[in-house]
């Protein structure tokens, strides 16, 4: 996995209306996370911070790309446990009016016969990719409006202005664990990856996001510009963007290196 070189940029802003930034993010290659907390009082920012802490632990404790899927599942279970515990404690102390919870958009490099992107999604924080200058939303929101769109009740244009557009149907935390959606993309299928909270994707449309991701060469500029545009568009929610570029990738398959070693040893007479 060391042969994959990643560049990234990240920016988070409280926005123009809110007093607390309940978004958290992590950019610790090869682990990237955006979490959008919720749950009244100060529960939301604690929930999203727990997610970032747990994924940071995953990244720091000698992350093994070969076990990426299992490690992520274990990390999510631990996040769920800690957030639920915190929420119950808050309710018991009458500090909170409801369960704390958080969305999750995560991207990790995993290794299964070669490096791949493992993407994980819960809630309405989004994962986009740029490929051949086209923007594609990879994750599918766990939200009420997404369900209405899927059912054909409303169009995706209506979804952007629907009064219930902030209602999500799955999150980390709360009384019952929710099932995350996982995605696996080959490395070459992603030129640039964007993880963002709905303070970005809800304030500016996909065309604007695509334009920034296409035009800003440096991923740090891309993340800054996305958040600035979201603020310029009203900044009604916390806005967070993490942009990741794959800048170098040496494709050394074990298969080939094994064969090369064998053939070398054969030439040297070490093997029959």
């Amino acid at each position, binding site marked *: 996995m060391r042969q994959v070189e990643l560049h990234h940029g990240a920016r988070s802003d409280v926005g123009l209306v809110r007093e607390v930034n309940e978004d958290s993010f992590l950019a610790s290659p090869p682990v990237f996370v955006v979490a959008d907390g919720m749950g009244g009082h100060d529960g939301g920012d604690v929930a999203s911070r727990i997610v970032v802490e747990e994924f940071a632990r995953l990244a720091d404790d000698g992350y093994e790309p070969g076990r990426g899927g299992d490690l992520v599942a274990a990390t999510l279970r631990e996040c769920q446990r800690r957030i639920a515990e915190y929420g119950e404690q808050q309710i018991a102390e009458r500090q909170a*009016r409801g369960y704390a919870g958080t969305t999750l958009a995560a991207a990790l490099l995993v290794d*299964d016969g070669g490096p791949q992107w493992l993407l994980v999604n819960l809630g309405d924080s989004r994962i986009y990719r740029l490929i051949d200058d086209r923007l594609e939303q990879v994750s599918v929101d766990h939200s009420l409006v997404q369900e209405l769109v899927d059912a054909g009740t409303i169009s995706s244009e209506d979804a952007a202005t629907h009064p219930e557009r902030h209602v999500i149907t799955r999150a980390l*935390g709360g*009384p019952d664990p929710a099932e995350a959606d996982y995605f*696996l993309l080959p490395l*070459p299928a992603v030129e640039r990856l964007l993880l963002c909270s709905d303070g970005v994707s809800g304030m500016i449309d996909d065309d604007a996001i695509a334009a920034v991701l296409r035009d800003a060469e440096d991923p740090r500029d891309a993340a800054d510009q996305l958040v600035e545009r979201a603020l310029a568009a009203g900044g*009604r929610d916390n806005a967070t963007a993490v942009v990741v570029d794959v800048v170098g990738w040496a494709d050394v398959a074990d298969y080939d290196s094994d064969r090369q070693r064998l053939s070398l040893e054969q030439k040297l007479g070490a093997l029959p």
Partner: protein
Amino acid sequence: MTETTATRSYRPGQWFGIFGSHATVLLPPTEKDRVGRLWALVDDGAGFDVVLDALISEGLRDLPGFVLVSAEEEETKIVIRGEARAWFTTGDETVEVSGSQATTWAERSVAGVEASRLVVGAAEEGGELPLLPIAQGLVRVSEVLAPPVDPVPEGEPVPAPIPEPEPELVVEDDAPDTAPHPVVVDEATPAPDVAPSGSVGPEPDLPPSPPSPPFGVPSGPPPAVPAPVTPPVEHDGLTRAGTSEESPAGPPTPPFVTRPVARLVFSSGDDVEVDRAVLVGRAPEARRFTTGDQPTLVAVPSPAQEISSTHLEIRPGSGADHGSAVATDLGSTNGTVVVQPGLPPEDLRPGIAVQLVPGAIIDLGDGVTIQVINP
């Protein structure tokens, strides 16, 4: 891994007895066709629900009788249909369950079972044949007793533990030679791999989640799950939680996939075991899968771009295809051709799974073929 201690005794007979680590199934002599499929499930350690699903998957009408017994922790569940009876002893009480009195089936759940006796088929069928011990396997039976008893050839069975564990316990070696052998024996049945290793095993928390619970401050439609919250108040965040109107239904959980059902040898050099879904294509992608269900991606070269980016899925089959690999064309641009041994080439229809026989060749185009062989 082989179980060397008998867990039951049986008397030879006409019915099929399928004994696994978690379930026992008895089927009438007419149901030979079902036995193979159920054996695969039961031997893999399937429990009550999975086996019952498989038993009745084609309806009840063509299934004249069966017995399904499964003990989970303290509780023994039994379902009986047709010409079969069962007795369960708990403490000083004996519960009888009979299939012949029920129009569909008789179902019972008994806690703390100490001994059980199952009798199937015509009463005298087993006659005076000796009782034989069994742990796991597939045999012809007329009567099954648990715990196992001493192999005395006659008399009322007295429940008693086997004095010494037998080394090869599927068939008793020192049983009287007069014992006829209408007995199908699966020698050295490997115990099912109870601990699925790696990421292939179904996670304990895999069953589809119920509709999502509310988070934060509930609003809009009343939440399905009552949460201990005070009346809804606006909070300072925009993101709120709601109740899903649909159940976030994950894909069906594959039944007990613990070992590969096939191996795929790619003309491009890859060699992959089918112990989970395998996605093949020019640049394959996997979308919206759940924990523990992570597929294998196999990229194949396609200089002429004849192969679609995610072209074909090969996964362990379920239901009638259990134990085999099945292939599904995922709506590829140029299609997929399968040549099964002894059959003419067949175009896969997009989205329709086709069972793969060992020896099958799959042609993806651009000179890329996949050979299907036994694992």
